[in-house]
């Protein structure tokens, strides 16, 4: 059972409240597809992913970036019950999408980097630590239904 302090809850909600999903969503996806190119295997049907400019101009990426962050929002709104909130999403990633769960951590790292470029020095070591804890719980919950 994950325990959150009041301070941690405030930090997570505060970071989220400042995010523009249409901006950070596609940027996070672009980063994972460029930095860890093997992840492109899951997006072969998205069309043109040749270089960062093409990726950012791709409407399917734009759409999917928002989908990912709406999914994260679910975790923010149910911080005391992320595992159950994500039960169906986990099954989806395992049984339908067949995503290697190691990729969840890669995307988490890319999201962190993009948020760092936005928040800059406001993303203090303490906020980074809380954010990492939150994403670790998300990654764990998404990996739970794999067998």
């Amino acid at each position, binding site marked *: 059972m994950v325990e959150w302090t009041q301070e941690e809850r405030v930090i997570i909600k505060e970071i989220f409240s400042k995010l523009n999903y249409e901006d950070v969503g596609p940027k996070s996806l*672009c*980063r994972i597809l*460029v*930095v860890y190119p093997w992840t492109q295997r899951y997006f072969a049907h998205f069309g043109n992913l040749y270089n*960062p400019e093409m990726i950012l101009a791709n409407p399917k990426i734009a759409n999917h970036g928002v989908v990912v962050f709406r999914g994260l929002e679910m975790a923010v709104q149910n911080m005391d019950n992320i595992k159950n909130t994500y039960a169906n999403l986990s099954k989806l990633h395992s049984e339908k999408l067949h995503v290697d769960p190691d990729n969840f951590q890669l995307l988490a*790292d890319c999201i*962190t*980097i*993009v948020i*760092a*470029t*936005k*928040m*800059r*020095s406001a*993303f203090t*070591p*303490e906020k*980074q*630590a809380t954010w*990492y804890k939150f994403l670790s719980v998300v990654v764990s919950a998404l990996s739970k239904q794999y067998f």
Partner: protein
Amino acid sequence: MTLTAKDKEVVKGFWAKIAPKIEDIGEDALSRMLVGYPQTKTYFSHWKDLSPGSAEVRKHGKVVLSGVGEAVKTIDDLTNGLLRLSELHAFQLRVDPANFKILSHCLLVVLAIKFPDDFTPEVHVSMDKFLGAVALALSEKYR
């Protein structure tokens, strides 16, 4: 995942921007590692103050980033270039190699904060590859 000529060019170019700020960047990266990944504090039990911005953190941050700078200079042959540091980490410090990844990530976060426009996905991938190669060279003598 070897470093291509392009990777090396990108790393050297980006390092030119980093070099004037290695003390600040080193301190910030180390602070983030110690705060975000408390298991890493076990390697610094001999320090008085492990809090962000302490004198020890600042001094050591500079040491670490200077080491990375050495790696940039010997980017064409990291194994030999980092021989001294590899022996240090293997026989004296004995840092579990998993921690190299953690510090690398924290360094990338600091670079994203300090250079939000320059730290593009292309620079990110070359830096990530480079830091991975440095970690590999550092663990060369472990076993």
